[in-house]
């Protein structure tokens, strides 16, 4: 200590009644300072920076590995397109030309599957989306615009148009009869249904832009591929093959200026000469009969959007499922290390409002992991993109998406966002558990175990895991639309979710918010 005779200029002695007051300015307790302090802690611990780098490296490497190796053989005949989107357009169409406004009405006596063993199966299989009904189509060219009102085997009456639009009507079973009507006025087409042919309900209406004066109106029936998913022995086999369905029509009446004669076409199903390729089951034959104003049509195929099962963008970002392991460890350590080393007491001494300290930690950690996630996701997408383009994932079936396109931007930025949420979740678990090993294990098990278990569980249980545990956040990585009116092999272990891309991060956010609130409560209640 200093010599006693030279007294340093001491701060002005506080008045005894006022107690001690710090001479430091009040600015130090600002939230900005707190953020800066937490950022300094994060950036100066070399292990933590290395962990963050490991997360970037793991995400990038695993993503590149997962993006490679998927090959797309591709059909020899490109599918029809509508608005640059590949679509299914295959059905039997009994039609006549209608010029100007007009109406077609019919009583559909049911849409029933043909109980037969189709190619690809050893037992009869049916398709719930088998459909038959009335259609207005601009031409018989595959991919041309249409509007239709129909009865489906299991999904009731529907009004569908433009290949992607689908409106539900009554939930009539495919075994029951129903009156259907389609009215064309200018370029507007409206679909109606009725139980008795006198009281009509509107099912849906649409505007077919550029509808020519003369259009084709008529009856159609078709039945999409049957799908069977069987899981045993921890593996899944998806069997698919064409199916047929029969629709019966009565009292078919067309009002308007028509050509008068019915024509039969199999839209989009011209047979190639020669035997069918061995790897593709041949389409079963379409059939139809006419008896006065009654028709029976048996058709196979589908009219609607094409289900794209391979999501190359998601595949090229899937490394984040591994990258979250170091992120979770970092999130836990960011708080448990302070408990272990006693640093937390210094932190709380400097900033006694504990909730604010944790909020600052969460913000700094979230921002750092978000940036790390972006640093991994952007090159992962760019590398993956060139890889899958080389492997045959090209337009028109697979759209050529760049980094600036909406779905890709959402998936790439969303990857960073989800990793940031995982980090904050881990931080909260760290506060609640305090034991580093246990906290890391809990977070990693909750996030990684569902991925491992999904493939072996029944589809319902696996879907629950993928949709309602924190791993659901990764639904933001999906870029292919999921159409409810198409039965695709949407398997949870393939990363396919039944809800919109933003719903999953909402689920993860809810878990994170609840745990964070619990963590703040616990931090306030318990001595450090």
């Amino acid at each position, binding site marked *: 200590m200093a010599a006693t005779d030279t007294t340093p200029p001491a701060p002005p002695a506080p008045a005894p009644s006022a107690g001690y007051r710090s001479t430091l300015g009040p600015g130090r307790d600002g939230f900005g300072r707190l953020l800066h302090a937490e950022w300094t802690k994060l950036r100066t611990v070399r292990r933590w920076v290395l962990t963050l780098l490991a997360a970037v490296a793991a995400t990038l490497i*695993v993503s590149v*590995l*997962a993006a*490679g*190796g*998927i090959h797309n053989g591709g059909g020899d005949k490109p599918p029809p397109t509508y608005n640059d989107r590949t679509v299914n357009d295959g059905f039997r169409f009994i039609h006549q030309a209608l010029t100007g406004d007009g109406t077609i009405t019919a009583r559909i006596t049911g849409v029933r599957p043909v109980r037969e063993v189709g190619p690809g199966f*050893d*037992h009869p299989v049916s398709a719930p989306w088998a459909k038959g009904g009335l259609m207005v189509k601009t031409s018989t060219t595959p991919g041309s615009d249409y509007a239709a009102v129909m009865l489906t085997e299991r999904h009731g009456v529907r009004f569908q148009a433009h290949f992607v639009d689908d409106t539900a009507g009554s939930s009539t079973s495919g075994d029951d009869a129903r009156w259907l009507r389609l009215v064309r006025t200018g370029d507007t087409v409206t679909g109606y249904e009725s139980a008795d042919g006198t009281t009509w309900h509107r099912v849906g209406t649409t505007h077919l832009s550029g509808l020519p004066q003369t259009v084709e109106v008529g009856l159609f029936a078709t039945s999409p591929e049957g799908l*069977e998913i*069987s*899981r*045993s*022995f*921890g593996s899944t086999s998806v069997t698919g093959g064409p199916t047929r369905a029969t629709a019966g029509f009565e009292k078919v009446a067309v009002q308007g200026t028509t050509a008068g004669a019915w024509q039969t076409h199999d839209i989009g199903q011209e047979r190639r000469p020669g035997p069918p390729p061995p790897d593709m089951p041949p389409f079963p034959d379409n059939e139809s009969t006419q008896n006065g104003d009654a028709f029976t049509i048996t058709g196979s195929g589908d009219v609607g959007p094409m289900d794209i099962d391979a999501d190359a963008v998601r595949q090229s970002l*899937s*490394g984040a*499922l*591994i990258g979250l*392991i*170091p992120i979770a*460890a970092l999130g*836990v*350590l960011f708080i*448990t*290390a302070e408990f*272990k080393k006693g640093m937390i007491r210094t932190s709380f001494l400097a900033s006694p409002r504990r909730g604010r300290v944790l909020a600052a930690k969460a913000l700094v950690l979230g921002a750092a992991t978000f940036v790390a996630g972006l640093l991994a996701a952007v090159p992962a997408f760019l590398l993956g993109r060139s890889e899958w383009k080389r492997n045959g994932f090209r337009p028109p079936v697979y759209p050529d998406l760049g980094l600036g396109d909406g779905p890709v931007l959402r998936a790439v930025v969303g990857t960073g966002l989800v990793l940031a949420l995982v980090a904050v979740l881990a931080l909260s678990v760290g506060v609640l558990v305090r*034991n*580093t*090993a*246990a906290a*890391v*294990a809990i977070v*990693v*098990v909750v996030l*990684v*175990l569902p*991925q*491992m*278990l999904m*493939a*072996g*569980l*029944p589809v*319902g*249980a696996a879907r629950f895991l993928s949709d309602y545990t924190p791993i659901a956040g990764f639904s933001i990585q999906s870029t292919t639309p999921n159409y409810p009116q198409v039965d695709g092999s949407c398997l949870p*272990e393939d990363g396919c979710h039944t809800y919109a891309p933003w719903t999953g991060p909402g689920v993860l956010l809810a878990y994170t918010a609840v745990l964070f609130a619990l963590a703040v409560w616990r931090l306030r209640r318990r001595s450090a």
Partner: protein
Amino acid sequence: MAATDARTLRALGGPAARDRARSAAEAGRPARERLPYMVHAEWTKLRTLPTTWLILAAAVLLTTAIGAAATSGLDPGHCRGTEPCAEDIVKQSLTGVLVGQVVVAILAIHAVCGEYATGTIRTTLTAMPDRVRVLVAKAVVVGGLTAAAGAAGVGAALGTARFVLLSQGFDHAHGYAALTLADGATARAAVGSVLNLVLVGWLTLGLAWLVRDSAGAIGSVLGLLYLSPVLASLANDPTWQHRLRKYGPGPAGLSVQNTLRLDRLDIGPWPGLGVLAAYTGAALLVGGLALCRRDA
């Protein structure tokens, strides 16, 4: 003072400790350096920590609960094929072992990294300077506790699953026999699962001696166990999928749980456990070397 320092230094130094141990063996070991005594010391250390019992209870509970959850989702009629739906109900019942492994790893980390965090390791090595024997003593205690908790967890999981499966309709009418340890394959799956837990405990022990820090240790164990199955599900090349499942410690070690269609496995039940044992041996070797060569 100086003499004490020298003795402590010798006790802490690896090679010096071995020399001392060798000379002690020639002179007839004092009682406190015999293995049973050291095992007893390790047992006392671990037994008196309340967390140990919490971890063991978690291992038993999670193994049982997750097995019950995995079986409760099964339905004997959900595959409609012509051949009978061959669900491996034994394997499903033992799904919880996947999580049991992690809890066992936490126990091993708790036993080793806890000592480094608190500095007890220096006391331990002063009292028992033969580091190889310290490692063996810890392995015996952790292995014994793991085996006991594993047996309880696996037994409870099978018992619960038997009840759940019967109520779910997995009975003779659907071509399923009730779960019983009298069945050879089921017994193998059960014993193999317990052995798997013990091996994972020892594997973690080896890594924990190497890494010392609990976050690093749990991270590397989880990475080692989980990386290969997740990679295999992400990889698209079937050859690589097969290799990852065959040589990854996680999936290979759990191959022993299969009771059906063993010819279609990536690796057989016992060879798979052998792969895990090889990883464990390597981890213990490296961890033991690190323990003997480094200052505590």
